[in-house]
């Protein structure tokens, strides 16, 4: 494959897509699939055939459109009409409406693309989501795919690439927020012939599905981002560590890798350059702690996924003791646009210390459930009230939880806080990987804290004492509270133990396990006190 061939595929695919005047795009990502998207797409295919419209209408299966709470969704071009909650009964009406001569009855509810849900978003990571067929590499190439890899391999030095990423100000999207450019530079500087790049797709936070949607909707973007990263740090072997709970994402990644290999976009001497690169998929087996990078490495090596003390950091001694770069799915997804538009462009979006956009999985008691991508600095109020359309059933927001079991709650009176790494940390929560769960007036914060502690005690690997035994005791104390059997002494003990587990645990899981308790204690102490036994 060379650039001419790549551009030829791009041109050809674009032309092919424009041949038919109408295009119906059906979301076939997991969310919509579980609402029956597959049969909707099949019926559409059949109906088009029966109406002899094959020459005029193209039905395309695409990735996530974002508004997952109202699936199955379809979008019809060129008018860009969006339909929600499509059922099989709606199909004839949709077909009739295609020729626009009359508005037909029985159409599914129509989505408003000018609604704040769409209007307030800025798509970088999800620019191709819901637009291209994730199973077809040509579709990705039509959108300019793999051109940045070509540009990097033939026109940039590894150092140039790292400089561009550093300039962009991109920070790790997995939760920690470590500057990506610095991480890359560290791995690049390490001596040694053998280095690895790993994509962390072990998205384990309950209530988060950003990475899954990206992998299901635009898998080649991750492959291209990883290849660019490998070139920059001097690696030639990559691994994608993905949780087994995402079978569709695994299938699409496998297919994408096959296609990239066939086109020579993966393998040896890519674009006739000296750069070789291959990617293997490693499937997890259900362990939240494997999102921690040293545990992830142990799991890739086929061992129990237990973390080890750092230093040495994976950048120095990672997979099989070699220097290893680990980034999360969303981080890699940002690389192609950064190279294409430049680091300065990326740095112009967002706030001073948090650049670019962030994808959130907006769920819980909220009107518009789904995936959103907003510029850093957007206020949580905008996300909840405008984009999310407010709380379900006219309820009121009590708190918004971010960061999953490692994060905390933002109470209603602080909703004007912008989403940024630092501002969230100041409130005692974290950006995390992007789960955002809205809780209404009926939610008991102590029960939520107990829910997360139950999660942590179950997911603790058991290696270090504070996390293994401490989370069990914390869970018991919270249960005592929920059952109204706790005393002031128990509450004091709860606080002391939270601090101890936070300060002394070996890895991130234990260190952050008490956060949901600490943060709810900070903002909703009354609730805890009201549950105490009167003595």
């Amino acid at each position, binding site marked *: 494959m060379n650039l001419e061939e790549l551009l030829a595929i791009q041109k050809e695919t674009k032309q092919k897509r424009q041949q038919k005047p109408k295009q119906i795009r059906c979301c076939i990502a997991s969310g919509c699939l579980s609402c029956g998207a597959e049969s909707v797409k099949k019926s559409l295919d059949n109906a088009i055939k029966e109406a002899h419209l094959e020459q005029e209408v193209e039905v395309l299966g695409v990735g996530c459109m974002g508004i*997952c709470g109202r699936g199955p969704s379809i979008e019809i071009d060129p008018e860009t009409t969006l339909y929600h909650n499509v059922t099989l009964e709606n199909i004839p009406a949709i077909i009739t409406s295609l020729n626009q001569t009359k508005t037909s009855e029985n159409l599914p509810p129509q989505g408003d693309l000018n609604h704040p849900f769409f209007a307030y978003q800025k798509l970088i990571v999800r620019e191709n989501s819901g637009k291209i067929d994730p199973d077809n590499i040509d579709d990705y190439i039509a959108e300019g795919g793999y051109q940045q890899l070509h540009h990097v391999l033939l026109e940039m030095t590894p150092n140039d690439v790292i400089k561009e990423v550093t300039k962009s100000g991109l920070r790790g999207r997995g939760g920690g927020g470590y500057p990506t450019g610095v991480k890359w530079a560290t791995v690049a500087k390490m001596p040694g012939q053998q280095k690895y790049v790993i994509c962390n797709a072990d*998205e384990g936070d309950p209530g*988060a*599905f950003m990475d*899954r949607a990206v992998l299901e909707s635009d898998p080649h973007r991750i492959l291209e981002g990883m290849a660019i990263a490998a070139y920059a740090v001097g690696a030639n072997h990559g691994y994608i560590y993905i949780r087994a709970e*995402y079978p569709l994402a695994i299938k699409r990644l496998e297919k994408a890798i096959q296609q990239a290999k066939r086109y020579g976009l993966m393998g040896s001497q890519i674009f006739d350059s000296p750069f070789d690169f291959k990617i293997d998929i490693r499937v997890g087996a259900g362990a939240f702690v494997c999102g921690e990078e040293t545990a992830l490495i142990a799991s890739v090596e*086929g061992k129990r996924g237990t973390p080890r003390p750092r230093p040495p950091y994976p950048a120095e001694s990672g997979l099989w003791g070699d220097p290893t770069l680990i980034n999360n799915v969303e981080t890699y997804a940002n690389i192609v646009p950064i190279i294409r538009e430049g680091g300065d462009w990326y740095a112009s979006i967002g706030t001073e210390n948090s650049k670019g956009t962030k994808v959130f999985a907006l769920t819980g*008691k909220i009107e518009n459930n789904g995936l959103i991508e907003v510029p850093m600095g957007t206020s949580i109020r905008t996300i909840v009230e405008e984009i999310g359309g407010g709380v379900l059933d006219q309820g009121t927001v009590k708190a918004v939880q971010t960061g999953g079991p490692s994060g905390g709650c933002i109470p209603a009176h602080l909703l004007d806080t912008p989403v940024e790494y630092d501002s969230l940390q100041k409130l005692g929560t974290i950006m995390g990987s992007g789960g955002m769960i809205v809780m209404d007036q009926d939610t008991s914060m102590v029960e939520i804290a107990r829910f997360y502690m139950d999660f942590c005690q179950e997911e603790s690997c058991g290696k270090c004492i504070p996390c293994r035994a401490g989370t069990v005791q914390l869970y018991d104390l919270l249960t005592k509270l929920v059952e109204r059997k706790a005393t002031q002494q128990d509450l004091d003990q709860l606080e002391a133990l939270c601090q101890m587990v936070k300060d002394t645990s070996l890895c991130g899981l234990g260190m952050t396990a008490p956060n949901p308790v600490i943060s709810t204690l900070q903002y909703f102490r009354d609730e805890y006190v009201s549950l105490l036994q009167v003595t």
Partner: protein
Amino acid sequence: METKTLTKQPQKSGQKVDKRFKILEVTMKRNHYRQDALIEILHKAQEAFGYLEPDVLEYVAHALKLPLSRVYGVATFYHLFSLKPSGKHTCVVCLGTACYVKGSDKILAALQQELGIKSGETTADKQISLLSARCLGACGIAPAVVFDGEVTGKQTAENVLEKIKNWQQHGEP
């Protein structure tokens, strides 16, 4: 070293070879008997056998030249590996935060009461296994329940119990 003959090891020529062990053997060969492929191989073994019985674990350990305790340690570390046979049908209730906030705990409680078993257990008649999951990533359609591998969204205790009753009555999904 181990000298014990395994009850379910592929038999010598002339005898019928358990097809499931053949699948396992092919998978291990494809992975070049690499020790770091243990998790992939266990996935495949569970797929073929339904669960990881001790004989299978022992067989894998020998083939990959891994200590028995190491293989057992890995197999019991990960939630998705099961060392016990599961029921004919499985019902997985998602307890991810989004589902929890929308009442999946109540669905699970109703199921536990109806079936008389706890999450992670199988009914005495080996018909139904009840499990809970930590987020299926289907938060948009919370609360989600998986019936025999099929994710369904926006569930309530009532319609989940109905589904289960169907299983119990017809033994069919």
